[in-house]
């Protein structure tokens, strides 16, 4: 069993933030060297576990320390935590994992662990990223060209922390989610546990804030999936995608008019707010259907209250004209994160397709990860389209009833420990 603990106060010291990548460099080199040893030990551990049905305690401890230390280093590098992690896992760290002593495991799952871990590693690829920043910028590179959540959080968090001396909770929690999932996936792969990692963002990092943003997602899905519609999901979504594209052309025109009108009046015209809200709701219905986050075939008009994965958009209200004027620039980080969440949705759909086809159900973790991605994307689009002036919240959270005030960022430590 792997426990994830988050005990970070969100405060960041600017000098260490500024030089974070350089300061983390020795730790990263140490992780690399340790990683070579861990790879060798992992192979020996695999053979031993296959024979004995249980990992030898020494090997288990060595690999557990490696996973724990790696989590510390990446938490430090990507600003999910502030203290320097040092070169061992001895000390407690604000972002920490605890791995229980070895337990007996099913030999079949041990034998095929590498294959079984592939879906989890796909999610790790999206959350943690594969390919470095340089690879991504180098067009001739053969490496996959996508950043994971951690890299993006690191970059955005760096600017924010430099300006404010603290990390926004949403970004920190997103990084914690990625680290938590990564630690569990690696623990599974390295035979430290036989518990398959859950991708559920609602249980990954401990207690979550209950928010009631102007754009919030309500999930009333029962996880049941129709095998027939799952098999043909992409083809069934085609007419919706065509309709969405046509509707999108009109929405673009309305968005431009809305921008001028909001700039002039300080608030969106009612008709534009309603039109764009409906468009966004429809887009969300189609995304939920296409990516298997929802089961039923959605309607073509974006009617509210018709879909089990439903976005609620608050009534229009007065907005700061300066933020309206520069909305496209302000929304840019959120739109970049939306692209990242799009990758997560694609992986959710890919894995969910197999799960749905074989079990006629969507795994809870995958469904919640998909819903999380859809919620953020819709919030970002709503912000961009001037339906709200609340910046999208990038961390996992519980959705509160409408009218509940949006919690202010909590600067206090958030102790959390959760069994998974």
């Amino acid at each position, binding site marked *: 069993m792997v426990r994830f603990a988050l005990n970070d106060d969100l405060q960041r010291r600017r000098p260490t933030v500024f030089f974070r990548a350089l300061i983390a460099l020795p730790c990263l080199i140490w992780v690399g060297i340790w990683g070579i040893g861990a790879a060798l030990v992992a192979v020996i551990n695999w053979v031993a576990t296959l024979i004995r049905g249980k990992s030898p305690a020494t090997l288990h401890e060595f690999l557990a320390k490696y996973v724990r230390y790696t989590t510390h280093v990446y938490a430090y590098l990507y600003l999910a935590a502030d203290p320097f992690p040092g070169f061992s896992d001895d000390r407690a760290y604000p972002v920490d994992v605890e791995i229980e002593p070895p337990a007996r495991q099913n030999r079949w799952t041990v034998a095929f662990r590498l294959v079984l871990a592939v879906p989890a590693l796909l999610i790790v690829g999206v959350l943690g990223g594969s390919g470095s920043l340089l690879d991504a910028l180098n067009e001739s590179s053969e490496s996959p060209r996508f950043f994971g959540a951690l890299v993006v959080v690191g970059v955005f968090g760096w600017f924010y922390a430099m300006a404010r001396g603290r990390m926004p909770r949403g970004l920190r929690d997103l990084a914690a989610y990625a680290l938590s999932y990564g630690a569990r996936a690696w623990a599974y792969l390295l035979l430290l546990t036989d518990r398959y990692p859950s991708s559920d963002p609602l249980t990954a990092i401990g207690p979550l804030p209950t928010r009631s943003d102007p754009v919030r997602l309500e999930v009333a899905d029962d996880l049941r999936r*129709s095998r*027939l*519609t799952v*098999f*043909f999901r*992409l*083809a*069934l*979504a*085609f*007419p919706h995608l*065509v309709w969405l594209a046509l509707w999108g052309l009109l929405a673009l025109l309305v968005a431009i008019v809305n921008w001028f009108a909001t700039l002039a009046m300080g608030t969106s015209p009612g008709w534009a707010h309603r039109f764009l809200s409906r468009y966004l709701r429809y887009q969300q*219905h189609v995304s939920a259907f296409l990516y298997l986050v*929802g*089961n*039923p*075939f*959605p*309607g*073509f*008009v974006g*009617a509210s209250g*018709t*879909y*089990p994965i439903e976005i609620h958009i608050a009534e229009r209200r007065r907005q700061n004209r300066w933020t309206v004027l520069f909305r496209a620039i302000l929304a840019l980080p959120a739109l970049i994160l939306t692209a990242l969440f799009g990758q997560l949705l694609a992986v959710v759909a890919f894995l969910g397709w197999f799960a749905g086809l074989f079990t006629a159900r969507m795994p809870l973790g995958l469904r919640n990860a998909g819903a999380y991605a859809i919620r953020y994307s819709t919030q970002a689009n709503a912000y961009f389209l001037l339906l709200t002036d609340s910046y999208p919240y990038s961390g996992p959270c519980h959705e509160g009833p409408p009218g509940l005030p949006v919690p202010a960022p909590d600067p206090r430590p958030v102790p959390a420990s959760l069994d998974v």
Partner: protein
Amino acid sequence: MSRRLRPATIALPVGAALWAWAAYALWNATHLPSLDLPQLDAHRYFSDSFLERSADYELFLGFLGLIGSIALVTVLVLYAWHGPRLVRESAAGRVGTGMLLAMLGFAVVWLAELPFDLLGLWWQRRHDVSHEGYLRHLLFGFLGLGGTFVFLCLGIGIMMGLAGVMRRWWWLAAVPAFVALGLLSAFLSPYLIPGTEPLHKPALEQEARTLERIEGTGESRLRVQEVHEFTDAPNAETVGLGPTTTIVLWDTLLDGDFSPAEVRFVVAHEIGHVAHDDVLKRVGWLALFLLPALGLTAYLTRRRGGLAQPEAIPVAILVLAVTQLLAAPLLNTAFRREEAAADWAALEATREPTAAKASFRRLATKSLSDPDPPFWIDGLYGNHPTTMERIAMAEAWEAPAR
């Protein structure tokens, strides 16, 4: 005591008479000289081994098509029975749910026909007629289903929308709507064919212009479609309407196996289609088919609450599929007549019966097409005259010229 005649009792025979008159008029719109075609011996034109091989090839595909059709009807009957249960998989309204049921019906048919489809591909690959890979075939078939669904949703949207307003008489309004869509589709079709490029053969283009003057048509666009990756079979087609009229030549026709005179004849044949307005006639046949087919659909879906209800969609698909299967031999008869007329026009324009016969032989040999197929295969699937009939026509044209 005399009973009052209901309007429908009068309208039905009057409508049937009008329909028959329209069909007769459309049939006669294609002028074909009454020829006494000679009975030719295929062995005079093709080797024994080819005749044996092509007969085997077509017979297998014919049986495969027949079994596929039986499977199609069986699956659709089952779907008409069980399909309405799938209503629960929809969060959409009446029309959206109908669209879902229609798409799932087609999806199920695609699945049911997949084994026959793959078997057919295997047979074509075995005979070197197709080079398409199985995975590509599957993938493109699956993705192509998405494109089909878009048009299907449009059609279902029209039918259910009209049924919601006009109730039992929706089909009378649906026929003109679908004819209009058919015209639009015919108009746009040249832009929907993938992998085409302009014809870069000035000599052939010049010859085409000459033939167009002879056959009395305006200038059509000439384009080449790249298909050699998937097949060796040659072909050409006329698509588009009015200003979009386009003659599409497969690149397998221009790979050097066909002589310039043979290619010229094929182009003249296509120009014949343009001269006879055959694309428009096809839309006319579509209208004639749709009228009884949709009327029957409206009648047979009443027990499910009429086509306005999504539960009626599986039955509607079954009725339309069966009527289409039944109408296919009749429509093929009309299409064969149009093709024969285009052949005759090409003979008149080129005055090269030898080239015509050579092109027919080459078309058959490269496509492994049975020159003289069994009656049932020709009746069910043949939308062109058989190769021997086409050669016989060239002989007949030649005879008075001698």
